[in-house]
């Protein structure tokens, strides 16, 4: 029974799950408040959830893990900065940001999808570098684009965007504070969770449509899908576009909770933790579900929030960064090496 569970869940997940459990158990003994850390975990879960969700379409369509997530993030950043530039505030501002970033993400995603169709088999490596180079390209663009709003532009030069832009007066916490409540030190960002649930529902709904099932068919067996009259390349492009759009929405959700827009090299390493989270939830390189997203994001963010507080009070040193690097990349490595084993 136990052996079977470990076999299906995989060693790394069991170890990490136990590790997180141990952290929660030891937390009260070393003077870390459970309620604060739990609410921190939940907030970060909500912040990152949608971005992790963005992995699903591409994985399901057989395009592999979306290491090119920064592309979607860039679309989101463009939407966010434009909404501020136009001076739209509040819920409308956030809606504007989403509305503006979706078409940008769709265009970028279309081009990205076309590219990935021409390099089948090498998607992940190329996606990584497409992500990196687009981030570097946007670094130049942030300096040159004609933004004027003084909250965003370097004061003394009058041109070029700042590295971090506060969204305080625009749409900070617009989702998080909707219907949110507090019990003592425990804070629950209801709105953000409702939004995340809605996004999950959208993905679920999409996967049930004819296009969605066709996409899954392409991912599990492209030859078979082709024989069944499915346009493989088209399905793949659709999946990439969807992933990119969700990436864009994901970063907007992240920013409204975080309170800042991070430009320049900010989106550079966005992809790795997201990829690690979904893998941690039990997804593989070619199969992912919403359940994987929920479990993975919770586990991953749980470790990220718990390790600094607990480990620091036990060892008196901050090892969280190192643990994050080892856990996230170890998880990706595990998934990559497993896929090939199954194949052979």
């Amino acid at each position: 029974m136990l052996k079977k569970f470990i076999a299906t869940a995989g060693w790394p997940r069991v170890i990490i799950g136990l590790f997180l459990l141990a952290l929660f158990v030891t937390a009260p003994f070393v003077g870390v408040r459970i309620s604060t850390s739990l609410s921190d975990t939940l907030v970060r879960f909500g912040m990152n959830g949608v971005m992790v969700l963005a992995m699903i379409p591409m994985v399901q369509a057989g395009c592999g893990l979306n290491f090119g997530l920064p592309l979607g993030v860039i679309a989101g950043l463009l939407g966010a900065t434009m909404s501020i530039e136009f001076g739209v505030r509040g819920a409308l501002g956030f809606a504007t940001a989403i509305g503006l970033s979706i078409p940008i993400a769709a265009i970028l995603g279309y081009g990205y999808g076309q590219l990935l169709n021409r390099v089948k088999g090498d998607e992940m490596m190329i996606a990584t570098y497409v992500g990196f180079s687009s981030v570097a390209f946007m670094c130049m663009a942030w300096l040159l684009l004609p933004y004027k709003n003084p909250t965003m532009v370097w004061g003394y030069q009058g041109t070029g965007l700042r590295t971090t832009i506060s969204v305080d007066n625009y749409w900070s916490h617009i989702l998080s504070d909707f219907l949110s409540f507090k019990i003592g030190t425990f804070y629950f960002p209801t709105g953000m969770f409702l939004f995340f649930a809605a996004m999950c529902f959208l993905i679920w709904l999409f996967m049930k449509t004819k296009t969605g099932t066709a996409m899954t068919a392409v991912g599990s067996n492209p030859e078979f899908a082709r024989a069944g009259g499915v346009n493989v390349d088209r399905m793949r492009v659709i999946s990439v576009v969807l992933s990119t759009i969700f990436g864009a929405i994901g970063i907007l959700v992240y920013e409204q909770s975080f309170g800042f827009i991070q430009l320049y090299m900010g989106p550079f390493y966005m992809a790795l933790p997201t990829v690690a989270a979904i893998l941690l939830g039990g997804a593989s390189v070619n199969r992912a579900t919403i359940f994987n997203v929920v479990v993975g994001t919770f586990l991953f963010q749980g470790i990220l929030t718990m390790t600094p507080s607990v480990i620091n009070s036990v060892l008196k040193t901050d090892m969280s960064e190192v643990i994050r690097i080892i856990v996230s990349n170890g998880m990706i490595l595990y998934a990559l090496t497993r896929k090939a084993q199954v194949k052979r």
Partner: protein
Amino acid sequence: MSRLDRGPDKKRNRGVGSLLADYAVPVIFIVISVVAIPLSDFSATYLIQELLVRIGRNSFLILSLLIPIMAGMGLNFGMVLGAMAGQIGLIFVSDWAVVGIPGIVLAMIIGTPVAVALGILCGEVLNRAKGQEMVTSYILGFFINGVYQLFVLYFMGWLIPISNPALVLSRGHGIRNAISLTGIRMVLDRLIPLQVGTVTIPVATYLVIAAFCFFILWFRKTKLGQDMRAIGQDMAVADSAGIPVNRTRVIAIVISTVLACYGQIIFLQNMGTLNTYNSHDQAGMFSIAALLIGGASVSRAGIGNVFLGVVLFHLMFIVAPKAGRNLMGEAQIGEYFRVFVSYGIIALALVLHAWKRLRDRAEARRSLRGPAGKE
């Protein structure tokens, strides 16, 4: 044997289009340099001096990438593992205050077992991810970076004794961000001094690099080298020919990792400062970008590509910020352009390679179908 069959065949199939695709990257770079050099206003002697220094500094690292490519394992993003091993060697050497050439040799001796162990690990992992070597080695680099930080940031000065307080963080354990390598700074470069006009040439470093080139030329002819090339051509064929595929692949990675370790030591003796937590990251990215700029592809790279690449890449490296300032009034633009080009070029080269591979495969399918249709 398969090489003989394929050699002429490949050449025949090559049209103008794929020839252009082969050399697209260097050509783009030559164009960029031709435009950017006059914009930067640097004098010729300054450029030559800088290039000579950078060729000496970087070539060894880039050369270490060649052997895995020969074995068909793509670009070894895992070379950062070797770089980390070299840095561990340097940390100990500066702790023990061993200076000069003995210091460098000792750093290499300490780094070698670490690099071998990491190389075996890397090779084993890559054997479990055949066909995905590049992305796997890339992530492995990140993973081992975490382990490296665990050791250097927490264990050194605590579990691993470090006696020199100048190396340790004020909290009592962990190595400082930047270590000044005064004792071994440029000792190899200045071992045989040579000055032509105002230009200094690091002769000894060049001799080491030349020796390495001869090693690679010789290695290709050995039994092991031939095996690697056979595996690079076709793993299944090599396997049926009785070549121990997995073992040979591990050896290829081990050699590359050890050489990257030495390369990083040579690189850092020229720089004179070890950035404990990010010197190795840059080593991997810049070396791969330079090799690709030299016209190498994921499956084919020679010594010529290394030197062409190092010259073109670093020419841009020197020239871009200044050209950016003169053109746009801001050096930052040139700086970002440089980053963009390094990543973009890797992306472009990977795309071109994947593209070509798919096209070759489609062509092969067509040629198989061809005679069958006639019958």
